[in-house]
């Protein structure tokens, strides 16, 4: 974990609300693993106050990339940062996706919804390094919500695209396409990141097909490194006394540990 108060932004691309920023942070880039995140200050002033947790999208040659959606006051401010400005970041934080040599030569499904695609790009590269065979399922509400499709295609990843309104790729939800595709596709593991409802559906499918699955959860965080206890969530093996900190024990958890919000009610 390192604090880089002056990480130079070296490139920026935006597509509507979505923003891709690359910044120089050697130590974070060297240590980062897929599924980990950074805490970034959205601005230089005291409002908004807190850092924002953002997934690491990629690392290459000392440059860290983040991909995020400008949704609230913090991410909107962050989206106004320009090339040659600085970011104040802390990272890498949390535990990433669980990767091991057993995935070599195996098919793996990566399922991303909207901005949830962010950590899966880094993951896809790491899986390729491990000689696993990642297939990416990437869905959004409309064509505007899946701007990273070209990046995956240009790098010749196998990618399946869906939009809820049918404006690009298959019409419907990414989970539907994934479910249908399992008739002739048997991934050894599933990695998913996206809206809670999407991940819950993936979890159900994984359980039904008996495939190990991991999910990257979102939470509002105060510190990002385990000190404030603000981001907790009750997981299946948690005792009454101790809930899990998403920042420290996650944000990636195996499906069998997660109590989905719908089940809770």
């Amino acid at each position, binding site marked *: *974990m*390192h*604090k880089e108060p002056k990480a130079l932004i070296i490139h920026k691309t935006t597509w509507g609300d979505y923003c891709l920023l690359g910044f120089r942070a050697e130590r974070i880039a060297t240590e980062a693993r897929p599924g980990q995140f950074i805490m970034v*200050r959205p601005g230089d002033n*005291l*409002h*908004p*106050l*807190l*850092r924002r947790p953002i997934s690491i999208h990629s690392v290459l040659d000392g440059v860290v990339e983040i991909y995020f959606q400008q949704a609230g006051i*913090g991410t909107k401010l962050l989206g106004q940062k320009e090339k040659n400005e600085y970011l*104040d970041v*802390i990272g890498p934080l949390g535990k990433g996706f669980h990767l091991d040599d057993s995935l070599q030569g195996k098919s793996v499904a990566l399922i991303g919804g909207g901005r949830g695609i962010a950590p899966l790009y880094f993951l896809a590269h790491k899986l390729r390094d491990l000689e696993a065979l990642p297939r990416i399922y990437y869905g959004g509400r409309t064509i505007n919500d899946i701007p990273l499709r070209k990046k995956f295609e240009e790098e010749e990843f196998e990618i399946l695209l869906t939009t809820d309104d049918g404006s690009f790729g298959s019409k419907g939800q990414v989970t539907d396409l994934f479910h249908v595709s399992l008739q002739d596709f048997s991934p050894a593991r599933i990695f998913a990141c996206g809206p809670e409802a999407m991940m819950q559906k993936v979890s159900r499918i994984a359980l039904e097909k008996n495939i190990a699955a991991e999910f990257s959860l979102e*939470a*509002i*965080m*105060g*510190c990002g*490194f*385990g*000190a*404030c*206890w*603000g*981001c*907790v*969530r*009750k997981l299946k093996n948690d005792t*009454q*006394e*101790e*809930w899990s900190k998403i920042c420290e024990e996650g944000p990636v958890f195996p499906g069998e540990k997660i109590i989905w919000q719908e089940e809770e009610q």
Partner: protein
Amino acid sequence: MTDLSVDLGFLQLKNPVLTASGTFGYGVEFTPFVDLNELGGFVVKGLYFHPRPGNPPPRLVETASGLINAIGLQGIGVKRFSEEILPRLKDFDTALIVNVCGNEDEEYAAVTEYLDKQEGIAAYELNISCPNTKRDGRCPALSPDTTHAVVSLVKKTSKRPVITKLSPNVTDITEIALAAQEGGSDGLALANTFLAMAIDVETRTPRPANVFGGLSGPAIKPLTLRMVYQVAQRVQIPIVGIGGIVSGNDALEYMIAGASAIEVGTANFVDPESTKNIIRDLEAYCRKNGIQSIEQIIGTLKV
């Protein structure tokens, strides 16, 4: 050479910068950012006798230059703290202050009695003011009588100095401060968070889930600063100022108003290196103004 040390009477600090309970974990979380030896001291997360689950999420809501939290004092209890955390903290050359909580007065005393048997603790901060543990935010610090009762009970047995942390959610905080002083409190910490809430207008649900939480951060600084000034006029025991401190300037305001030391809270999340930057700023201020000892500025407001 500037002398940043402050003498609270019951406790000598190498500088006036402490950390506020609940914002600094158990200290160990911050070692990647801050050399704990450089701090005046640090106050660890509130401890009840037994472990506590805390409140359901969401627990945090950001407001204008502020943060509402309803963590609910999730914590590991005195036994695990003593066995797992204390051994990791004992080699730091700084004042370790343990924030002590209780559901009843007797629990506060049970916590300090248990901790009295452990080494490496400099003082207790009696948390009689957390707004999150009961739904309507009630706590002993809301009345002089209940404040006096719990402080005097703990003081009867405690082998270590006691700093009583007061609530700002009262009509006249000076009355509560005087009650704590009469109860035998060695010092006062002013103040805990302000009872607050926010609402998600789309879902019409409260944020945090607990409905109420405690507001901290720069938004509250002028309010607690005023309280520190008011209390400093009335009590003889030292005051630790807390509330929205993010800079050396903020710390200086509290000290000029009458605080002998300060605690950095929410700023630890914004910048985990805040404490060391504030210490550096205090040193620079003293050097620039020819102040030999920082104690010379305590309570020097010219009205």
